[in-house]
């Protein structure tokens, strides 16, 4: 099992959160400029925070210092540390490390005492926090000959594995959709680090046959995990995590409902953060993050206020595919500058069809988790025929009274790039709203820099 070394990335996150807490605790600090700029703030920081402070995006610090963002930013960051603590405690206890794909709900891994590290979160969180994102990892794997058109979220983490910056996997769990790029980089990881790869096939059809097959796949995963760990899945432990997961899903669905309100009560930078914690459904820290989010959004709804300035006319956007993560304050800027709010996207939209897991017995829990596997964001939209994706977003555009449909297309997602015209055509035909499409790399700012994102949006709003 894992020797628990290679925790550089985790340690950086921990210091980053200490840093965030430090600045949030400073009375009267509302932006770095208020205190005389980044250099002045650096001088008052404890010594051990300074290197990380140099890497942290200054705009992100300014963003979390805003009153409207403080509470959820604090919850987001502190729950990241709780996740790190949780994984490290398991590793210190010589428990195995499993890298898993983000649309996989992790209750089974949790119940088996496996440290669940989401492969995509490692790169994603670094991209969100630091000026240089996960570029070192991305560049490292590309230096091995792996091309730039592979998905950067796996490339960043793969590079970190080569750089001994994250724990090595004892095994990996991957669902087979949506993409070849992620599949292949999981297989690369499996071969390179001699870690077994459990592939969960996601059936192409969303029907009884598909669900039955998915149930069989979850059972097969359990058998393989039991073989790898030598432990048996305990029903009561699983039930406990499923119950926490159900509460979490309930919060997510309630937040989605509240976002129907005009003006939108929730800020857009939460969506990438949501994705990170959707990988931790079943954990207390995942639940805590979404509960905080729900309470914050509910308070705004009850107070009848939105997230945009009162003098702005709201422009309600649906992001028909992904967010970007390398510039979270961009969403804050959209709200403040253009009154453009963010409803839903493919990576965080949890269809109400997902329901809750019936915790009556082992069989019902497996059935529920299999159903969730078929309905987790992105997995749901991408595993089969495109009508699910198109149908979801036509409905969202209508029900959430969307004014414009934005598609920031992640360059690595070939399945999406072969679908985007059918999707936008249908949106125009059925809802009659303008659409904007642009290219980006969700995790690597070098592809479409933040300044270019803003230029694109300025131009779009000037045009429509």
């Amino acid at each position, binding site marked *: 099992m894992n020797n628990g070394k290679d925790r550089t990335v985790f340690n950086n996150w921990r210091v980053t959160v200490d840093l965030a807490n430090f600045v949030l605790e400073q009375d009267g600090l509302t932006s770095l400029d208020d205190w005389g700029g980044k250099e002045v703030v650096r001088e008052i920081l404890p010594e051990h925070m300074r290197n990380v402070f140099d890497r942290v995006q200054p705009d992100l610090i300014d963003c979390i210092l805003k009153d409207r963002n403080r509470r959820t930013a604090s919850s987001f960051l502190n729950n990241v540390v709780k996740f790190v603590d949780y994984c490290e405690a398991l590793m210190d206890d010589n428990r195995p490390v499993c890298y898993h794909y983000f649309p996989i709900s992790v209750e089974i891994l949790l119940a088996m005492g496996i440290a669940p590290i989401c492969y995509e979160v490692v790169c994603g969180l670094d991209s969100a926090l630091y000026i240089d994102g996960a570029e070192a990892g991305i560049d490292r794997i590309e230096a*091995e*000959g*792996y*091309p730039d*058109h*592979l998905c950067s979220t796996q490339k960043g983490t793969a590079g970190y594995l080569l750089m001994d910056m994250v724990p090595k996997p004892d095994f990996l769990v*991957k669902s*087979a959709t*949506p*993409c*070849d*790029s992620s*599949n*292949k*980089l*999981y*297989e*690369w990881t*499996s*071969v390179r680090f001699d870690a077994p*790869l459990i*592939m969960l*096939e996601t*059936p*192409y*059809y969303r029907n009884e*046959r598909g669900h039955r*097959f998915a149930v*069989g*796949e979850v059972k*097969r995963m359990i058998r393989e995990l039991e073989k790898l760990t030598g432990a048996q899945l305990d029903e009561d432990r699983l039930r406990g995590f499923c119950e926490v997961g159900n509460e979490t899903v309930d919060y997510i669905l309630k937040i989605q409902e509240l976002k129907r309100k005009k003006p939108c009560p929730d800020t857009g930078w939460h969506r990438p953060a949501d994705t990170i914690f959707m990988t931790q459904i079943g954990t207390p820290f995942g639940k805590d993050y979404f509960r905080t989010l729900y309470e914050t959004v509910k308070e705004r709804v009850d107070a009848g206020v939105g997230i945009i300035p009162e003098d702005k006319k709201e422009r309600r956007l649906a992001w028909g595919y992904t967010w970007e993560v390398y510039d979270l304050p961009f969403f804050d800027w959209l709200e403040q500058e253009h009154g453009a709010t963010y409803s839903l996207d493919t990576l965080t939209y949890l269809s109400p069809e997902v329901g809750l897991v019936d915790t009556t017995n082992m069989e019902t829990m497996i059935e529920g988790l299999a159903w969730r596997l078929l309905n987790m964001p992105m997995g749901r939209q991408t595993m089969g*025929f*495109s009508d699910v994706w198109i149908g979801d977003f036509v409905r969202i555009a209508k029900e959430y009274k969307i004014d414009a449909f934005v598609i920031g*297309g992640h*360059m*690595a*997602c*070939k*399945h999406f*790039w*072969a*679908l*985007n*015209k*059918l999707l936008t055509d249908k949106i125009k035909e059925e809802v009659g709203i303008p659409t904007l499409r642009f*290219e980006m790399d969700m995790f690597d700012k070098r592809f479409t820099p933040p300044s270019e994102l803003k230029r694109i949006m300025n131009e779009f709003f000037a045009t429509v």
Partner: protein
Amino acid sequence: MTALEELFRVPHRTENPYIKDWKGNGGRVIGFTCSYVPEEIIHAAGLLPYRIEARGCRETDLADVYMHRFNCTYARCILQEGLSDRYDFLDGMCLLNGCEQIRRLYEIWDAEHKTDYMYMVTIPHSVYDEGLAWYRDEIFNFKEKLTSDFAVRCSKKDLQNSIQVYNETRRLIRELYELRKTKDVPISGSEALRIVLSAYVMPRETYNELLKLALHEVRSREGNSSYKARLLVGGSAVDGPELFELIEGMGGMIVADTLCCGSRQFDMTVSEDADPLDALTRAYYVKNPCPRMMNEYKSRLKYTIDAAQAASVDGVILQKIVFCDNHAVDGTMLADDLEAAGIPTMVMERDHMLTDTGRLRTRVEAFMERIAGR
């Protein structure tokens, strides 16, 4: 024209005399896009299977409306040919979730090309018992829908007959590959590829008869040993001879491949004793795997090493079409391990349309200099 010359022709889809004859006699043609679609099903139903290709496609302006520049040019060229009405002879189309770009062709083709019969067969991404059962059901459902929509029969006996016909092709093509293992090679790689590609565009019984005659001609040819290096080519789908001609134009002799349209398709034999549907499912599912099959890297590596050693190659060229993630990762992994096994390997990126031939020639030339006379 001799049989060999006939098989060298690989007729263009719009001028294919076999298709014209077939259609002229009331026959119907079903296109398919991936080597995991068992052609025997289509054949046994009395329909003509046609492996979709985009030979000769030189631009993708129509396809680019639907598929972005981040999509591979193989998928885009196929779509271009469809949107250019050059696949109007198809009565049906069967796609497979082989890769994410080809699987998305389904929706676009369905929306824009209006082929009457559209079907998607899905195959799991790894090889295991439950996956085999899923794939068997998929093939069964495909057969049922095909026979129902076209009002044709596809009995057990029909399937057994088709399996025999296709096994005969495989046996003959393996003979062709054996002839290329000699030092004095009687047929170039590009010529052999033309023969192989012809299998996908004409009635299989006709093809088998032509190939039997052609093999006699090949055996009687004088061998060629004046090449600089013996090569194996692997990687992305190759549907035309131009790439092979370019490589051999630099003095290489391609004596083996690990292509999905080549050896990987013909190195298997479908059991003629078992239940035909079971036999087809098993043979296609467990055959030498495409890189889209996970947890099969070691078997792909072994297959490549075995093929390289059996044909006594001096080097391996793993060509990949830009934006093909499956071959991009697999090729890079294979290159490292083949080099470690003492087999010089070059990974070469290309588009489906061979536009940057100068760059490709330079790369092949440099590789040949490295390996020639080792």
